[in-house]
């Protein structure tokens, strides 16, 4: 009896410690970046171009570049991912082909991001001759987040109760009408959540944009999707490792802006999911 009580205590302590260990690095990262980066944040830092070889001035072009890339990625990935998810969850039968497609999606999610970068370089920059441009970068990021969008959209579609589809069909609706009027509207919050998580991922990645779009130093805003652009993660890499004597404040300030951007997107995703859960009653 006493022995089992003790092993219970030990097990509890171990589980608790392991959980605590997860919180510590997250907390430390956030605290350090906020403490060291906050002094750099002011209106000039957010709205000015980098000056004096990126040792002064702001990061505005990098913020804008990242926004362009993220929007571009979603413009490509959302329609394709959503249509694929609809096909997989509503139309495809369980057979060899659909198993291969699902396997491909899982594998796509597991590809290292630098490989996406090389792939984007070979396909979009070189083969399609888009050059290093927002277009190439967006497409590369888009392919990278496709698995996230497909997987979360599929889950959202499949969580719509079967009975809704059955009633809709029993009232004489076609399969497509059922998807369009009943399944999709009820899956939208889940799809949005996945999309925003994908956006957050796209905003934070460095490797896929390394060869496809990112400019080392480009103190002006891109004019078209065929322009190169600066981007926050790459800019952070550059001022941290490639440019000597950059004030620590500026590096951490840049990291803080990127972190806030990504956290903000995740927060929006969480809020949407929360509101939806509260609303749905079936």
């Amino acid at each position, binding site marked *: 009896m006493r022995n089992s009580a003790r092993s219970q205590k030990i097990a509890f302590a171990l589980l608790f410690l392991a959980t605590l260990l997860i919180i510590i690095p997250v907390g430390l990262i956030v605290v350090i970046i906020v403490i060291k980066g906050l002094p750099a944040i002011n209106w000039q830092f957010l709205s000015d171009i980098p000056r004096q070889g990126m040792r002064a001035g702001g990061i505005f072009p990098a913020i804008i570049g990242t926004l362009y890339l993220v929007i571009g990625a979603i413009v490509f990935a959302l329609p394709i991912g959503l249509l694929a998810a609809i096909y997989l969850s509503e139309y495809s039968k369980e057979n060899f082909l659909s198993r291969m497609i699902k396997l491909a999606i899982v594998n796509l999610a597991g590809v290292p991001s630098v490989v996406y970068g090389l792939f984007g370089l070979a396909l979009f920059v070189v083969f399609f001759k888009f050059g290093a441009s927002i277009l190439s970068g967006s497409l590369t990021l888009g392919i990278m987040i496709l698995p996230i969008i497909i997987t979360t959209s599929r889950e959202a579609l499949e969580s719509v109760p079967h009975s809704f589809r059955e009633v809709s*069909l029993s009232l004489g609706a076609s399969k497509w009408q059922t998807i369009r009027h009943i399944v999709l509207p009820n899956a939208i919050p889940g799809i949005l959540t996945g999309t925003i998580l994908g956006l957050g991922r796209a905003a934070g990645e460095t490797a896929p944009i390394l060869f496809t779009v990112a400019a080392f130093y480009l103190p002006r805003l891109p004019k078209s999707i065929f322009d190169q652009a600066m981007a926050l993660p790459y800019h952070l890499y550059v001022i941290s490792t490639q440019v000597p004597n950059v004030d620590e404040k500026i590096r951490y300030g840049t990291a803080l802006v990127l972190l806030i951007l990504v956290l903000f997107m995740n927060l929006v995703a969480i809020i949407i999911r929360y509101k939806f859960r509260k609303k749905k009653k079936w």
Partner: protein
Amino acid sequence: MEKLQARNLNLWYYDFQALKDVNVSFEEKKITAIIGPSGCGKSTMLRAFNRMNDLIEGVRTEGKILIDGENILNNGMGLEGLRKKVGMVFQRPNPFPLSIYENIVFGEKIHAEKIKKGRLERIIEDSLKAVFLWDDLKDKLHKPALGLSLEQKQRLCIARLIAVKPDVVLMDEPCSALDPQATARIEELMRELKNNYTIIIVTHNMQQAARVSDETGFMLLGELIEFGRTEDIFTRPKDRRTEDYITGRYG
């Protein structure tokens, strides 16, 4: 008048034969009840009449189902048109997570070439009046349908079905989620509806079959054992298995 007939209807789920050589015909504007123990194939038969079984993998149907003389098992049968004509009320009240209004106009939005607001208003009023919900709900048409009571939900589902103007209404244990008072009121509604619709109801509540139906069929292990006027089935069944079932020897 015969509205719906099944001729030598056989149905398999993969290797399992769920319906065996069923021959039956349903009278127009009457209520016909199908009774029998769980798993006897009564719901499966009902779902054959609007071809909802097509949604289930591994189902194979043979024989003929004639509605107004047309075999709906033909390959060329348009399922949308068939289901518009042969509607279904399900066991669990299942309104869409939309407003009351949106639930009822769903069919019209699906089927109408052009949506006219005035027509929608009329459909709402007619359908809700037909299920005796109009007075209760006319002022909260835009409230969510999921906030209604179970009985109201089931009435709403019937109204949603009536709005597409079916000929035949299939009811699959429509009261099994309801309490006895609500059940009595839905049965009242069914008697009202039979003036305009051919109703086939599947139930394992024998009293319900006896109360509402004009004709009754008894099914067992995929076979239609006996079919006839409800009072005959319940007072002088011809088959011993029917008698055993209605006297409660199994079920």
